[in-house]
């Protein structure tokens, strides 16, 4: 069971308090109407799915109810950093 440092609560908390919300930093296109079906489909469905460092969005559902960014290694499950939405992650 993972231990995730919540950047809002300022404490490590147990995975049970969180829910996963997919890959982070998927920016919603500014003007969806200008995209063709393929480009819009890429935004809707395609994710990087790496083996290794992965930028993720988590939701502190049973805590402060804030969304946070997590940099997690999908192979080792090591979490190297967490930060607030809107803050930029340090370079991986």
């Amino acid at each position, binding site marked *: *069971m993972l*231990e995730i440092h919540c950047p809002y609560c300022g404490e490590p908390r*147990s995975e049970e308090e969180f829910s996963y919300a997919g890959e982070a930093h998927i920016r919603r296109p500014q003007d969806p*109407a200008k995209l063709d*079906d393929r480009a819009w489909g890429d935004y*809707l469905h395609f994710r990087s799915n790496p083996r290794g460092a992965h930028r993720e969005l988590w*939701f502190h559902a049973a805590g402060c109810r804030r969304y946070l960014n997590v940099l997690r290694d999908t192979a080792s*499950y090591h979490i190297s950093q967490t930060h607030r939405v809107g803050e930029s992650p340090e370079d991986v």
Partner: protein
Amino acid sequence: MGAGGGSLPRPSRSAHPTAPPAHPTTRRLPAGGRIDRSQPLRFTFNGRSMSGFVGDTLASALLANGVDTVAQSFKHGRRRGIVGSGTEEPNAIVDLGDGAHRIPNQRATQVELHAGLVATSGARRRLKRFAGAFAGVMPAGFYYKFFMGPPWLWRRWEALLRRAAGLGAVPTGADPDTYDKLNHHCDVLVVGGGPAGIAAALAAARVDARVALVDEQNEFGGSLLGAPQAIGDAPATQWVDAAIAELSACPNAVLLPRATAFGYYDHNFVTVLERRTDHLGATSPCAPRQRLHRIRAKQVALATGAVERPATFANNDLPGVMLASAVAAYLNRYAVAAGTRLLLFTGNDNAYRTALDWRRAGRCVVAVADTRASPAGALVAQAEAAGIEIHKAHAVIEAIGRKRVAGALIAPLSEDGQRLAAKPRRLDCDLIACSDGWSPAIHLSSQAGARPRWNEEGMMFLPGAPRQPTVCAGAVNGAMSLAACLADGAAAGARAAHAAGFGDARPRFAAPPVEEAEEDAARPLFIAPHVQPSSRAPKQFVDFQLDVTAADIELAAREGYRSVEHAKRYTALGFGTDQGKLGNVNGVAILARALGQGIAETGVTVFRPAYTPVTFGAIAGRDAGELFDAERHTPMHAWHMARGAAWENVGRWKRPWHYPQADETMHEAVVRECRSARQDIAMLDASTLGKIDVQGADAATFLDRIYAGSFQRLGVGRCRYGLMLREDGTIFDDGVAARLADTRFLLHTTTGNAEAVLAWLELWRQTEWPDLDVYFTSVTDHWATAALAGPKARDVLRRVCDDIDLSREAFPFMSVRSGHVAGRPARVFRISFSGELCFEVNVAAHDGMDVWNALMAAGEPFGITPYGTETMHVLRAEKGFIIVGQDTDGSMTPDDMGLGWAVRHGKPFGFIGDRSLALADHRRADRLHFVGLATTDAAAVLPEGAQIVAASTRRAAKPTTPRAMQGHVTSSYFSPTLGRSIALAMLTRGRERLGETICCPLADGREVSAQVVRPIFFDAEGRRTHA
């Protein structure tokens, strides 16, 4: 048959596990041991009454009572005796207690004896009885090979196998005990309370780290409890007592004896099972019986020790063949001699201690068979000086005896140890103590992701490079001498504390001096050669619990199972409840030899939780019975109960399904409730509907982006039906939103989706539009809601509400007003899910019961009837109102559902899902459309989920199968109002097919035909709703 017999099959006479003890008292030594001779205990084993002492385990007491055979083996039904003295024991698996108190599959070596304990042999001859003639020749992969054949035959076998399978018997009733869970955080968690673990705990605690020390035995000390060793000038146990006293006095240390760390998970999360009262009796005299500790540690120090590895030779499963360390432990700790004439079979110096202890206890050592040509260690010299006969470069190749060891064949080994150098000869003995080396207990380390590495020098698998903050100490690290364990433990404890932020990594205590005998190099054999090849020799057992032999593993190699993981699954090596603690390494060595490769490249299988079996009770903890899944009740729950409501579970909510009167059937109750709503007045508890309060200067802007419809220009006091779409254009949720003020809305969500909708709103606000001034509060539980539905709703409400103008003009459909109902502050919505004139009265939850009663009293003269969810469903289906999640399945767009009117294109920002509605696939002409179905036979109610196919055109022709599926029924009821069956369905191109007849083939073979109609069956103009 005694108390332990129960209804279990009686073991056959020829192999009764409890032959009467020949000399009941001779096996217990007159003095010594850590047992309390002033406290004798009576217990029963397989119905026979026996005695032991406080401090005994069940295993030591059985040995003391002369019990040789404790169980019969799983596959072959062979006699099996006690082999080990701890968690590694594969054979002595017993059931404790009886009836509901029965605890199956306990290791007798870890069961503390208590007065009145009732034990029965776990494994029985059931499988053998089933397999009958095959039992003697069940090779590796038996099941895969034997049960090939036609599928119908397998079903026969399955029934037989299920009856035969399993080791113990399950309890006959619900578990009477309670269990708890505890969460801990600590700086250093030390697993294992032997010398290394205690040293590690001391080193960490002395620099003020928060320490937890867990050990599976009833007292701390580990191997020191069974060995007459000295630390400093005193017996080792005195050092243990002093160390534990110091730790007990430490405010920053937690000591957990009788606690097994069985799982090591991500981010240093370790689960520990503590047995609090198992040693006091079958049922806990004081709750709880066991506790599951969930420990998150900054650093974990594994001091899990090592398990002695037995030698593999022919008939090595005969009772009387034991681990050398176990023979010594029973002798020293429990004052039990497991036999009279000992033959020691070893390839290392360490095991000589067993022979020396045995001789010191006044017993006969027949001889030592040492695999080494010229062992030169100090202990060997001591044995020689004591006159013990040592056969060098010899191996025990076969045990002889029927019910128990009566002798052994020993033979000289060739130089490489693979063959015999001369003919074997027989030695008479009744106990063979064997030691082929030690296997570090790397299970937890392996669970934590560290790949075990083979150490050629020590001939053992050691913990691999840790992938979590782990340190290893003592025997698990390959440190086999006491002095090394103490030093390694102290260093590891200091290192772990330092890594957790305490101390300077130098241990603050020096281990007292320990006299160590100098040891010569060891020579493990893994398997002793026999005059016959493995396939012809008497069985050479590798895994006792699952009856896996050396020949099985060699066969697996011949059949192409080269990977150790595959060979494990094919032969079942290590699959038992003991996880192959004794046999795995021997099995790997035999496989490596058969494949002509080294042990290092063969590798070892990955260990997974649990290290030892865990009770379901402990895993469930308090989350059992009514706390298994908490129920949510509305403020009017007690009223529904008193009214005799039948319940429907909606999410966690308990909702009244219908209210049967006297001996009414559900159908009769629903007919009555529907009539009341359509003709007079009925009332529904709608409190469970999700409610979210949305406030902020940008609330309207935000909702415009979230809902497909437009909310920017919705007037204050007005309501609007809204559809939320996912970004892919499919319907996510629906409900009515009301504008309470310029900057405040109340959103209704479906009952089951309230939490998901709230998270969805937060997701978009926090990640995509943090600049918007809007915030959300769940107020579902704050309000009690009573929906008054029926032509007389206004008349009823008027009697208890005098400060809201309820007239049609002043309070039109789809609006909200505030005032008082029955004297309580209320918010009244004129919205309708029934198609009737309806007022939804919302009051504070704590007023809900009173207001409900007042409304029932006010409705009394009008014949008010409470109605449940079934009637609600019928009423809404008559109107064609969808239920998201029942009529939709996550692939439907608003257009598919005929809800295009609720979508507003061309809003300034657009909305979530907007772009996707224009995707080519969402504009296909042949999509499924939401339609109504009117069955040809008005009385035939279609089952929900029924598939729709085209009706057969030629009446006489037998329909062809399969026929293409064209859709399915999503909702179906008998409508009392219309006096006929109605259904809602998704149908390909449905809207173009109104009037067409389709067909639903049912599971029972019937075919029901129906006409496609618009999905609205009643009051299509909405006159009643707007009344």
